[in-house]
């Protein structure tokens, strides 16, 4: 058992730390999403030139071929320094790895480089209005027409669809096959007439996600990834990559939030002292620290296991569940500490911390829904970790 970094890992961390300190572009502009995206594109270009984009990708495909620990170090350090995300976060974390794992040589040659540079943004077309947790029931149809496929249907919760050149689209190509077998994974060109996107306004008031409508949109046969009818297996790779890649960045992000929460408690007057002196708040803050620490240590145990077995196990679901719980608790506690001031949002003169916690509270409601709902994660844990029988 050894929870320290090896000398070469320490060297890697120092290299990451120094590079980020010297190249950090500062906070994102407080402006519309268009400006934010252009800022993130510049940042991704900078990351790519220094070899930090796609650090998990093999070197032959333009990545750094970093070990899992190095990926964890990079994610943790970037979040600790509050570096902005790259513009093409979905392409880097999911699209690229899927093309590398399942794509043809032509596809690798065509798609990988522009993902790394951020020149082409990617989005993910999985969820549909009637297919959320039961993803394999999706109805968007692709019908063969010569050497093309004609796609009709609707996707929802599509992040960055309005900026995307490529969509990782899962569509039904065989309506008669059992539901997991009739699916195919396509790379769909978003810049065509048959594709319409519309922002979906969420409870924060923002339009982070989109609805996407396909009306006889066209995809060449050459854009099938992993073979016709294999869409489910290819999509699962995408989701596994999503979970494995996010853990350490997410932990760092919660550590940042906890630091801000402690500061909020210390600066908020309560009962002639501060909230940080109130036993009730102290107990709850301590419990959050303890839970974050257990999440961090679980992630290390999971990483050790994955490095031995080569594949992330279903235990990763525990981390995603715990992250959602903690992030929600944390923002709820912040509003409790603010008391009546917690009513005031961004834009109010008297809002505490510029209304940041009000936004975080609302945004974190989605944490137990996005990327696998907590209820579904519990099913996965019950069935695949504990071996309990399936209800279905």
């Amino acid at each position: 058992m050894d929870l320290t970094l090896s000398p070469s890992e320490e060297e890697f961390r120092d290299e990451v730390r120094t590079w980020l300190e010297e190249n950090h572009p500062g906070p994102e502009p407080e402006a519309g999403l268009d400006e934010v995206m252009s800022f993130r594109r510049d940042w991704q270009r900078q990351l790519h030139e220094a070899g930090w984009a796609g650090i998990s990708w093999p070197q032959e495909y333009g990545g750094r071929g970093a070990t899992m620990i190095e990926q964890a170090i990079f994610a943790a350090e970037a979040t600790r320094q509050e570096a902005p995300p790259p513009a093409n976060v979905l392409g880097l974390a999911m699209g690229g790895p899927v093309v590398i794992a399942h794509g043809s040589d032509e596809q690798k040659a065509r798609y990988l480089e522009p993902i790394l540079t951020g020149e082409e943004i990617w989005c993910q077309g999985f969820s549909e209005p009637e297919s959320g947790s039961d993803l394999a029931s999706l109805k968007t149809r692709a019908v063969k027409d010569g050497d093309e496929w004609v796609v009709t249907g609707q996707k929802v919760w599509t992040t960055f669809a309005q900026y995307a050149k490529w969509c990782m689209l899962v569509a039904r190509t065989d309506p008669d096959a059992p539901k997991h077998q009739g699916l195919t994974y396509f790379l769909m060109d978003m810049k065509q007439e048959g594709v319409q996107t519309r922002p979906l306004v969420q409870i924060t008031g923002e339009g982070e996600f989109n609805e996407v409508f396909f009306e006889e949109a066209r995809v060449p046969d050459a854009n099938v990834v992993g073979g016709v009818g294999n869409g489910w297996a290819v999509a699962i790779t995408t989701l596994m990559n999503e979970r494995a890649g996010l853990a350490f960045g997410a932990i760092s992000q919660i550590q940042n939030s906890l630091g801000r929460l402690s500061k909020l408690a210390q600066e908020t007057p309560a009962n002639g002292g501060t909230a940080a002196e109130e036993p009730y708040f102290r107990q709850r803050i301590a419990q959050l620290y303890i839970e974050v620490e257990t999440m961090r240590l679980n992630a290390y145990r999971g990483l050790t296991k994955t490095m031995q077995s080569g594949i992330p196990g279903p235990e990763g679901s525990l981390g995603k569940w715990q992250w959602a719980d903690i992030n929600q608790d944390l923002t709820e506690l912040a509003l409790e500490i603010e008391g009546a001031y917690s009513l005031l949002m961004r834009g109010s003169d008297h809002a505490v911390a510029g209304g940041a916690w009000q936004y975080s509270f609302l945004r974190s409601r989605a944490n137990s829904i996005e990327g696998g709902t907590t209820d579904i994660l519990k099913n996965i844990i019950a069935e695949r970790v504990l071996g309990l029988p399936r209800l279905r």
Partner: protein
Amino acid sequence: MYFDLTDEQQAIKSTAHDFLASRFKSERIRKIAASESGFDEAGWREMAELGWAGLALPEEWGGQGLGIVELAVLFEEMGYALAPSPLLSNTIAGLAIAAAGSDEQRERYLPQLASGELLATPALMDAGTPAEPGAFAMAATEDGDGVVLDGEKTLVMDAASAELFLVATADGRRHLVEKGATGVTVIPEESIDLTRRLSSVRFEGVRVAPQNTLPGGADDYFPPVFLRACVAIAAESTGVAQRALDFSVAYAKDRQQFGRPIGAYQAVSHRCAQMLLETENSRSAVYGAAWAADAEPESLPLAASMAKAYASDAGWRVPDAAIQVHGGIGFTWEHDLHFFLKRGRANAATFGDAKWHRERVADAVLSGATAPAVA
């Protein structure tokens, strides 16, 4: 970075697991629990032969010289089996003499403690004082070249089998008093936990010769003894939780209602998933703290309090949930679950409860100590 047991640690775990599973079956645990002293001498002798009594004591005094990670591995298995044994109290007494004793005292007691021939137990809490660790009321009144002890200690573990008490006094010192010494009376108490006996011990004008007072002061006990004891008992609670989870999963697969195994219902399976989460979190916190005790002592105070706080809760909540998964049978005396719930509850309140340890965590993090950085 390697956060898992090494092959050697894994071997300790499986040896302990197999030995305890073969020796401590339900009937035997119930027999010990129902006996007058609660002490299973034959079981203790076997554990001593395996070297467990001196596992974490230095080799020069007859111990195995292993670390707190190995100790945690062992106590996790002790909790899993719920083996009634004075191993915890004896281990703590040994750690205390090793940390704060004179060489002469170490020479005199540690080899015997490590071999299991001598049993010792700490006598810490003063009857009637607030339930907080570390503050002692009993005076050590100077008397010639020694001291005299008057007062009553309570919640003393395994007093029936112990021959030697390590008595804490208000000045932060510890004194070695034999059970047979004049003025010592042991009064067995009724504990919620039938598998670990508690007593009160009355000291009436008990004279302690100077060679029987440990030279160390309060600081010599806090990190090296108390925090290690917290890690050990938190490990035990983790094992308790794991066993309650295993009982529940097996039962949920087997028990049929409405024509299906109850584990197919999400009300049951999600409860089991929650139990797994708490058990795994507890284990991670314990091994993080055990590793800190061995390799990074400066982070032990925070890590040990995190582990003890978390395991205090999980150690009884998981068996509590297990009783709900079992339904009516889980509430019967006949089922073993109640022994696990009771040990979990007892451990939760021993060596500082979750609230006490959370306050220490709050103190550390709000006074500027940052959470450990990732990597």
